[in-house]
């Protein structure tokens, strides 16, 4: 199992959340102090550089118009890390190619980072969460089709080396495509795509890209990973390798339970702070009508709170793994077996007010005491044994968590 460290680069020093309508999109940036911001940006880059030294891989993402993630152009930070790190693979998950209007520019930025890092780029493409729509001013209807159109253009821009080619699609147009540089890795850097539904999972599988799932937890992970594995088998006639699937979760490792709990509570800022106004969470055209209708109606009586920030809830849902090294390993092992297996753990190890030292302490314990055991675990992966294991473990009774997953990274 490869583990990818990430943090969203939050700016957590905010006024009381009762004083604003939404942390996303319309919170005035007068609340951002650039001097404090400079400290934070440098701290985040230091944390990633430390991850490299600990033998972890690196993941970045981007959001817009939100203090939950003050990195609005992940390729820039990735460019810095391409110089500051030596070994780590550099994953951007991802480029919001549905919302960005120039796929060619994305292909160029990624090619540059791949060359600069001597082939360490792993390139993700995402549709983006609903509250990215207003900042991008991009109508989200048919977002999945737009994603694949931009993807096809970027893939060809990376792999076509004989001078300009033409692209006149439904949404994107470029008639003289001939990027310089081309990527370092041949034929192209590994590609990742986030999966939020069974349908999107099958489409990722058909292209043999890595399918990543964020915080789907026990209630949804089988549906998503199974859709990928089935789609892969149907298209390619063989089982999907373990390294084609990734799961993102919040992880904190402590020396003892008390310390772990304290750290995990700090990380839960990520879920607690995500106060989003309905107009940004449900822009027209993003969700299918039935989901949009559910969001307009609000939770039915007795429906669980999808963003319940209590640690015990998030632990039981499989969105948070936290405890002593033994406990975290056991939690991850249980989830890994339940899910049918995956080859990448996207580890959110810093959020909110968590300090550099606290982050380092958890990462160090993870790298030394959990990671080796995870690698051993995945080295034993055998699809048939896994199927037996799975059939012995019934589905977790379903609370529908699909909306929680869809609200995060996509």
């Amino acid at each position, binding site marked *: 199992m490869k583990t990818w460290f990430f943090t969203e680069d939050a700016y957590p020093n905010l006024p009381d959340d009762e004083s604003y309508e939404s942390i996303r999109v319309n919170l005035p940036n007068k609340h951002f102090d650039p001097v404090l911001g400079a400290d934070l940006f440098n701290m985040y880059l230091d944390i990633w550089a430390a991850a490299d030294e600990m033998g972890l891989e690196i993941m970045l993402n981007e959001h817009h118009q939100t203090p939950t993630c003050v990195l609005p152009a992940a390729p820039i930070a990735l460019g810095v890390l391409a110089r500051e790190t030596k070994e780590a693979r550099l994953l951007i998950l991802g480029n919001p190619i549905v919302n960005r209007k120039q796929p060619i520019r994305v292909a160029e930025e990624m090619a540059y980072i791949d060359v600069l890092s001597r082939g360490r780029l792993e390139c993700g493409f995402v549709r983006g969460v609903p509250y990215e729509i207003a900042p991008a001013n991009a109508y989200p209807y048919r977002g999945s089709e737009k994603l694949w159109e931009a993807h096809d253009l970027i893939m060809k821009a990376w792999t076509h080396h004989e001078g300009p080619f033409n692209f006149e699609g439904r949404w994107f147009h470029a008639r003289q495509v001939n990027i310089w540089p081309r990527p370092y890795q041949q034929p192209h850097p590994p590609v990742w795509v986030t999966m939020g539904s069974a349908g999107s999972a099958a489409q990722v599988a058909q292209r043999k890209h890595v399918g990543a799932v964020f915080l789907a937890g026990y209630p949804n992970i089988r549906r998503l990973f199974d859709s990928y594995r089935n789609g892969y088998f149907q298209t390619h006639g063989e089982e999907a390798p373990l390294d084609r699937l990734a799961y993102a979760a919040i992880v904190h490792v402590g020396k003892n339970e008390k310390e772990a709990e304290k750290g995990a509570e700090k990380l839960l800022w990520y879920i607690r702070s995500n106060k989003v106004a*309905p107009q940004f969470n449900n*822009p*027209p055209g993003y969700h299918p*009508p039935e989901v949009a*209708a559910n969001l307009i*109606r609000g939770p039915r009586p007795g429906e669980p709170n999808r963003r319940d920030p209590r640690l015990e809830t998030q632990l039981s849902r499989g969105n948070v793994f936290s405890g002593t090294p033994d406990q975290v390993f056991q939690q991850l092992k249980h989830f890994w077996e339940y899910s049918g297996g995956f080859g990448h753990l996207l580890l959110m190890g810093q959020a909110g007010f968590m300090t550099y030292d606290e982050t380092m302490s958890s990462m160090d314990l993870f790298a030394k005491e959990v990671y080796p055991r995870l690698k051993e675990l995945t080295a034993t992966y055998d699809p048939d044994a896994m199927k037996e294991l799975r059939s012995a473990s019934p589905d977790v009774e379903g609370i529908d968590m699909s909306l929680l997953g869809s609200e995060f990274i996509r």
Partner: protein
Amino acid sequence: MPFADRLAERYEVIQPVHPGFAGTPIPEHFDNIQDLIFLYLDLIDELNLENTILAGFSMGGWLAAEIAAINTKRFSKLVLVDSVGIKPGGPFDRDIADVFAISPNEHTRISWHDSSKAPDPRNMNDEELQIFASDRIAHGLYTWEPYMHNPKLQYRLHRIDIPTLLIWGEGDQVVKPSYGEAFRDLISSSRMVVIPDAGHSPHVEQPEAFINHFLEFAF
């Protein structure tokens, strides 16, 4: 629409539903209002309309203005009610409220003089709510960018050469009466009436005043 029933006492009323609204599907090739304009040109030819009053509300007013700017020969008169479609101000002016970026309560507040007349999703059953959500999707598809307007329309409205009435709710804050005046000034054969105690839907909030203005103009 009750006012349509009133009109039907005197006229044959054709009330088409735009694709995507009222539970109908959005055609696969539809991307924006241009697709709707050409669908209506087809429909008008198909029905072989002549000497017809063309009326549109809000986005439908935009559509009616676009159709009339192409050719008025099948129409006798044009009625535009709290219509969007033009951009009188500069890039930094918000001429048309961004209805997709405000809270549901704020949307109600700026759209209605009497907010109790607004459709309330809390009173809808599942099927009605799904149609409500689908309507928003279609509305967004037709109006997203450029937002609720065609930058070219102001250079084409001079082609409208039939009597035109603009009806506006005095309290409309989606497109204010001053926006209606800008619209009026671009159509030389037009005049405008403003209905008090009404917002973006004067035909719903003040049906009597609305029908009176409409019939007076139609005769």
